[in-house]
């Protein structure tokens, strides 16, 4: 097994075992969406209209949950020091950890989203568009959050700081994610326009994120 695959498998194992946050993210996602009708009222027409927005917002918040442990757990048990001293380029290791994070927190959300969408009275085209936009958009959330996680790694109250610095940076992803999901069920803009931008955001952040996160880790751990 190559070192990168080893890190990927290790991170995924850690997150699905006791103390890992993989399923906690989905639970949080479901809970947030369940709370919405209590705040907004059980009007299905309204919920159907703003359903994609609710699901996107809940996915954004849920993706933050496991982020603060992404590097902090490795920092606590010393494995981050080993990774830094190892021969693998730190950028690649960081990207592998991001991939593991997405597979364990992003992917379960995408699976759960259509089921929860049924409760918000989303119809089949809206469900399909929602799943497509989440597949295209959640990697951007992970890679943007990666930078915040690397900056906050050595802090005691890092989780709070992480949310404050990461959330404003995710504004474009939220805008284009919701726009694409809404465009599929009507509206003046074709689905492809916001969807392509969403893909571009994911690709760009996957190119920038690992380098920025690796730089932050090197600076922090000196």
């Amino acid at each position: 097994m190559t070192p990168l695959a080893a890190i990927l498998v290790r991170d995924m194992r850690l997150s699905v075992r006791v103390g890992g946050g993989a399923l906690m993210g989905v639970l949080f996602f479901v809970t947030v969406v369940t709370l919405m009708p209590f705040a907004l009222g059980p009007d299905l027409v309204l919920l159907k209209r703003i359903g994609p927005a609710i699901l996107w917002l809940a996915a954004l918040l849920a993706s933050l949950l496991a982020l603060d442990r992404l590097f902090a757990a490795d920092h606590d048990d010393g494995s981050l020091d080993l990774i830094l001293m190892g021969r693998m380029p730190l950028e690649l290791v960081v990207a592998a950890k991001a991939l593991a994070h997405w597979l364990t927190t992003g992917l379960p959300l995408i699976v759960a989203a259509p089921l929860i969408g049924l409760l918000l009275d989303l119809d089949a085209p809206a469900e399909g568009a929602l799943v497509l936009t989440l597949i295209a958009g959640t990697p951007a959330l992970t890679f943007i959050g990666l930078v915040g996680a690397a900056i906050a790694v050595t802090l005691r109250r890092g989780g709070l700081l992480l949310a404050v610095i990461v959330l404003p940076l995710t504004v474009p992803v939220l805008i284009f994610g919701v726009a694409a999901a809404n465009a599929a069920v009507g509206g003046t803009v074709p689905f492809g326009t916001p969807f392509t931008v969403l893909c571009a955001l994911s690709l760009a952040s996957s190119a920038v994120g690992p380098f920025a996160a690796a730089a932050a880790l090197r600076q922090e751990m000196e």
Partner: protein
Amino acid sequence: MAIINLANPSRFLALATRTIPWLGGLTLLVFAFAINQAMSAPDDYQQGATVKIMFLHVPGAWLGMLGWLVMTVAALGTLVWRHPLADVVAKAAAPIGAAFTLMCLVTGSLWGRPMWGTYWVWDARLTSMLVLFLLYLGVIAVWRTVEDPSRAARAAAILALVGALDLPIIKFSVDWWNTLHQGSSIFRMGGPTIDPSILIPLLIMALAFTLLFATLLLAATRNEILRRRVRAMRLMQASAAA
């Protein structure tokens, strides 16, 4: 003086102590002239006297963005050249930039009330300024959370650089979002070209505020250096007593 010489804090302090009174005096003079010009500028034929708010609002927006630019350049100084002054400038620039952004938001809000009938609209420009303000608060939070100043500097520098990459995207996406949702009622803040009778006082006012920005930045940088000296002396005192 070459910029590398300013790496010596004593040299910078000497330069700052000499420069700040002159820069401050110049700022006061230009402000006196600019306020005079702004007050004697004619009222807008539609907006009446409320157009005067623009003389605070527009410089606030420009300098709010200039603050992030200063932080970005300082971030490169921190990460690439390890210039000691860059850390200090970056830390000093964040609250000043945030203050100008807040000034833009508050005056814009007060201007919006009589003109649009509401304090806030989720218009593209307003929203992107609000996000800029939130990003400033995030950078300030990093400075206040990390205890060791040089590590805080590097964390804040990376955030400033990522923010500098993301800010144009946020601006662009917010513009797009706005046109998608409210195509019929876009508020055009710039509107038609401004008449020279108002534009020239505006530019003088912007110059006055830019000088104020420079003075404040220089003074805040000096204060931060002094604050670090006090910290170092306290640490030395504590370790000598122990």
